[in-house]
């Protein structure tokens, strides 16, 4: 089954008539230099930015999904969120259940999973950037949506929490969810099922990381020379 299908989506100056199919239950990385269109692609895929063409979630055309249903079917995590008012962390997670009738399910589990128990009653606008980001990821987890679209989830996180987010993504995948995340750390990309490489709004390559991320492609897309050497490996205890 196809978890996400994009057909002929374009955004002027940012995405050029792009086609993409991602199989359901996969963990996929979206990589490319700054300005290559990663965030734009995720916004179009989430139905938050009009991109013409066709967007399908698990076989359903996005145009035919009503707004409330969208909140149940896809979870979008922005690069950052500026909270104007001091909602508590617990309240922000509860927003993830809005489309489920505010039933409050899964909030405690998500707080624990993202190390947010001690921050649960703190106003979210008083948290650090990394802590705020964990709140956004925990809220995505609370939605229990089959499709997850995360924009640079690892960017502001310390190593431990970056590993926890990768473990969460892996668990979601194992339970049948599709997770698509944009990344800058190419070393992480090798742990994913598939990578999608973007450059200047064009799709350069799609496939398994070891097949796609060749030194030639990295030089062409990122302008960097790649050497494969052993390096520091971090794991959760």
């Amino acid at each position: 089954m196809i978890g996400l299908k994009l057909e002929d989506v374009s955004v002027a100056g940012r995405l050029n008539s792009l086609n993409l199919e991602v199989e359901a239950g996969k963990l996929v990385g979206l990589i490319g230099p700054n300005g290559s269109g990663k965030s734009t692609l995720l916004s179009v895929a989430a139905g938050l930015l009009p991109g013409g063409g066709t967007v399908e979630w698990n076989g359903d055309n996005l145009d035919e999904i009503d707004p409330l249903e969208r909140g149940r079917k896809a979870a979008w995590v922005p690069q950052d969120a500026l909270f104007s008012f001091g909602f508590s962390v617990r309240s922000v997670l509860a927003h993830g259940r809005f489309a489920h009738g505010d039933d409050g399910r899964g909030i405690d589990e998500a707080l624990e999973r993202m190390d947010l128990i001690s921050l649960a009653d703190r106003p979210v606008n008083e948290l650090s950037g990394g802590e705020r980001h964990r709140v956004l990821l925990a809220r995505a987890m609370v939605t229990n949506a089959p499709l997850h679209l995360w924009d640079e989830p690892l960017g502001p996180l310390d190593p431990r929490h970056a590993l926890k987010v990768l473990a969460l993504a892996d668990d979601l995948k194992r339970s049948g969810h599709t997770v698509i995340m944009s990344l800058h750390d190419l070393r992480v990309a090798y742990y994913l099922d598939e990578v999608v490489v973007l450059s200047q709004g064009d799709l350069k390559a799609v496939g398994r990381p070891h097949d796609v991320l060749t030194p030639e492609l990295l030089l062409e897309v990122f302008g960097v020379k790649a050497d494969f050497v052993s390096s520091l490996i971090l794991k959760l205890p």
Partner: protein
Amino acid sequence: MKTWLRDHAMWIASGGLVVAMLASLGIGDMPLSLDRIWAGLWKEDEMASIVLWQIRVPRMLVAIEIGAALAASGVVMQAYFRNSLASPGLLGVSSGGAAGAVIAIGAGWAAVSFYILPFMAIVGAFSATLAVVGLARQGASTERLLLAGVALNALLGAVTSYVLSDFTLSYERNAQIIFWLLGGLEDRNWDHVLMATPVVLCAALLWPLGRSMDLLSLGATEAQSLGVNVRVLRRKMLALSTVMTALATAVAGTVGFVGLVVPHIFRLMIGPEHKRLVPISIIGGATFVLACDLIGRSMGGIRLGIVTAALGGPFFLWMLRRRS
């Protein structure tokens, strides 16, 4: 302390409203004790009954209606613009309502039918709302929002001044116009109570939107991703807040700062969740206007708009300082 305040805020606000209502009925040129208020309300004390039913009860009800309307309108605008400095007065929506009312009086339309004045206030307020939405988009910075409000208030002030400067206006019409500009509850009667009654319906329609407003205050994109129909919600919010501001202006003129001060105080007390913030601001707004009216009355008849501005102005400056 904060948890205790949060848990008991609704009781405190409701108690404050009851006290303010009783004070509003009892204090005046003819002071009335609780016993006489009771007897007057049941028409067992003829003198008290006349004072209450012809003067103080309608004045109190108008104060409650406009206080509730302006505070609720402030909450909605703050969620819409994601900015706690947004309010009907600062953004020019109240001035739009007043300009509509002033045009209706100046042109003599208000004398034709009782309902032309509120209608024109609504038209003026909607025009101002559309202008401010265009000038300061959702999520706009404080500076942009306030500058949009300054520009709009100046423009609408010019419209009002133009009508006032029309030398063909009679003394009576000029006096009526000055009433709108100062804002007040003098001589408000049952017709005015009736005119502002739709604010009760607006408040009732606003209540179920509380949860969606929480999400919209995170940003339109986030709200949409979480399942909110942002376009429909925004339309409802703008329509309800504008109608409430317009009706408040139509019955009492320009009364500033209520929509700014009241939601801000309660947000500090109980947090930003709109399901609680909307009803408590409605109660608090009514109490605030009643209290300001009492202050004005006890100081020899200072107009309501002057009292709310005298209290709200320093509060606004404190908020600005706190934010910086």
